[in-house]
């Protein structure tokens, strides 16, 4: 820490340290609920609270049973010996496994859909000849602003009319709608740094619009596209409201399964899943940050 300059008054010194304390408290306020979950997921008892054994760091008080339960809950023969058949049983029958499969399937499909739509929209909206750009932009990102429960209820009625509710396609489309604004925002931000004369240069060198898009524009905005896509994936991955409205038990996702877990089973398996989700989020955020740095480096290259 930098040394305080000699002319600091007592008041300034007090503020200097209290400012740091306040910052630390805010940080704790934000992160503590997440941190609490992590050790609790290793609880040997089926409780959502710290046992005296845990507080005493007794190894006996910790276990991986709730992580195992992710696989075992719902299995036909959970106590069968570990074999391919056991894994097949877990893959097909365990409730959590089905939820995880659903979450990834729906999340990836929704991510692909919203990445494609959002990227196209952002490129169109970045062109100066596009009329009513601001209006269209605010309509496209409105799913971020409109209360989720309203969007979800609206989609429920609409999708029910056209037989899309209670189907995978319906859930995927709903999540794609929620994820698209993130893609539009990140890609638009990347396009701000995109030098339009590169497109002209590619044209003058003989590349048509499609070649120019894939060879020149896409490689340069890909960090924005990927980070937008990851945001879209996360949006779908932890979304519960639209799923409550639109999904049948067949399309149960991880958040939906946690929802019923906490209401019906009250099992710390939820905490184990939550811990895994936190890890996944940390990995995704790291990827996004690395991509952002890469894009800044590429952008710094272009003389303006």
């Amino acid at each position, binding site marked *: 820490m930098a040394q305080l300059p000699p002319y600091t008054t007592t008041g300034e010194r007090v503020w200097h340290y209290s400012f740091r304390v306040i910052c630390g408290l805010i940080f704790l306020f934000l992160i503590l609920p997440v941190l609490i979950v992590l050790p609790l997921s290793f609880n040997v008892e089926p409780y959502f609270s710290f046992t005296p054994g845990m507080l005493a760091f007794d190894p006996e008080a910790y276990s991986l049973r709730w992580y195992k339960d992710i696989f075992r809950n719902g299995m036909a023969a959970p106590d069968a010996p570990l074999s391919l058949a056991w894994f097949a049983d877990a893959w097909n029958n365990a409730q959590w496994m089905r939820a995880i499969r659903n979450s990834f399937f729906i999340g990836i499909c929704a991510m692909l859909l919203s990445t494609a739509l959002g990227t196209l929209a952002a490129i169109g909206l970045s062109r100066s000849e596009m009329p009513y750009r601001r209006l269209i932009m605010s309509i496209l990102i409105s799913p971020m602003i409109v209360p989720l429960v309203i969007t979800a209820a609206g989609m429920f009625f609409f999708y029910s009319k056209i037989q899309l509710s209670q189907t995978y396609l319906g859930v995927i489309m709903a999540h794609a709608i929620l994820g698209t604004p993130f893609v539009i925002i990140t890609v638009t931000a990347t396009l701000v740094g995109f*030098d339009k*004369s*590169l497109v*002209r*240069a*590619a*044209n*003058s*060198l*003989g*590349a*048509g*619009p499609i*070649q*120019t898009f894939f*060879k*020149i524009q896409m*490689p*340069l905005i890909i960090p924005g596209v990927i980070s937008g896509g990851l945001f879209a994936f996360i949006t779908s991955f932890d979304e519960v409201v639209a799923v409550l409205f639109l999904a049948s038990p067949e399309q149960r996702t991880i958040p939906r399964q946690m929802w019923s877990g906490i209401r019906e089973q009250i099992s710390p398996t939820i905490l184990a899943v939550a811990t895994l989700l936190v890890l996944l989020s940390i990995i995704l955020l790291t990827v996004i940050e690395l991509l952002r740095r890469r894009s800044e480096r*590429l952008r*710094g*290259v*272009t*003389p*303006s």
Partner: protein
Amino acid sequence: MLDGSDPFVCFRNVQKSYDGETLVVKNLNLEIESGEFVTMLGPSGSGKTTCLMMLAGFETATHGEIELGGKPINNIPPHKRGIGMVFQNYALFPHMTVAENLTFPLKVRGMSSGEIDEKVGRALDMVQMRFFADRKPAQLSGGQQQRIALARALVFEPELVLMDEPLGALDKQLREHMQYEIKHIHENLGVTVVYVTHDQSEALTMSNRIAVFDDGVIQQLADPVTLYEKPENAFVAQFIGENNTLAGTVTSLSGGVASVTLDSGDAVKALAINTDGKGSATQLSVRPERCVVTPKKKAGLSSLKGRIEELIYLGDHIRCRMTVAGNDEFIVKVPNTADQLGLQIGAEPYVGWQTDDCRALDVKDA
């Protein structure tokens, strides 16, 4: 073009308006021969870049025809025109190496890799950048990036290359060096070059012909010597090189020579280049290096009494600011020879010039 019949590039009655009201380019007619180096020179907003962009295909003409090699190209998209272009900011693809940048136009044309390697190698040799083939553009200096941009615009052997102020971002010394380099490449390859700049010395150095733009109109199209020696109107006289102006009225015209009474009352003779005839207002133009300062009136010269206001010693010549016929910005470049060193501030010698060096032009608001 050998037979000199059809021009290689031709603008016919081209107009351009961005907002549908004001014309940025007004009725442009310009013919460029194959192998020529033509510069469009003018202040910013004069329409020169717009003309270049219309030729490249990035802007469409509101009215009129643009022809390339005898064929109208108004309806051909930029990527099918086969015109090389060097951009002001170089526009190198930042995610590709130097070699990949040069390969791009060849790959797009579906050439074989052997042919590509050969052409890329030759283009890099031309700009002396072979050792930099594997670098990314960000690892190059401005001048090096400029060379790569030049090589990229030439590597697919276009017949026409457009350059939009390519040297604008370089420092003065490098700029001058690159001017010669571009000039030599043009001479060696024989490509047609259309060059846009607002720097008159750049235009004079490199061009076969210069089109001086102002207000969306070509004010004069001529080779550098004619442009400097024989400007046709007040704008060109002011824009190219240094120029002294004297306002007056034409009193009589005979045999291409106008007698002009200056606003100060002095009478002088000048070549009648661009006047509206007897009785009209005119602006006389005299180059500073064509004036002589003499203690007495000299026979055969138009002489006016002046007063020395300021002397600036520049080594090879002395820049002498004088008040002549009410103009206190009248500059004379006095060669630094032994007999001229008697100039003093406040002295009132005569300033003289030959009638052939004084041109009566239209009146242009400064």
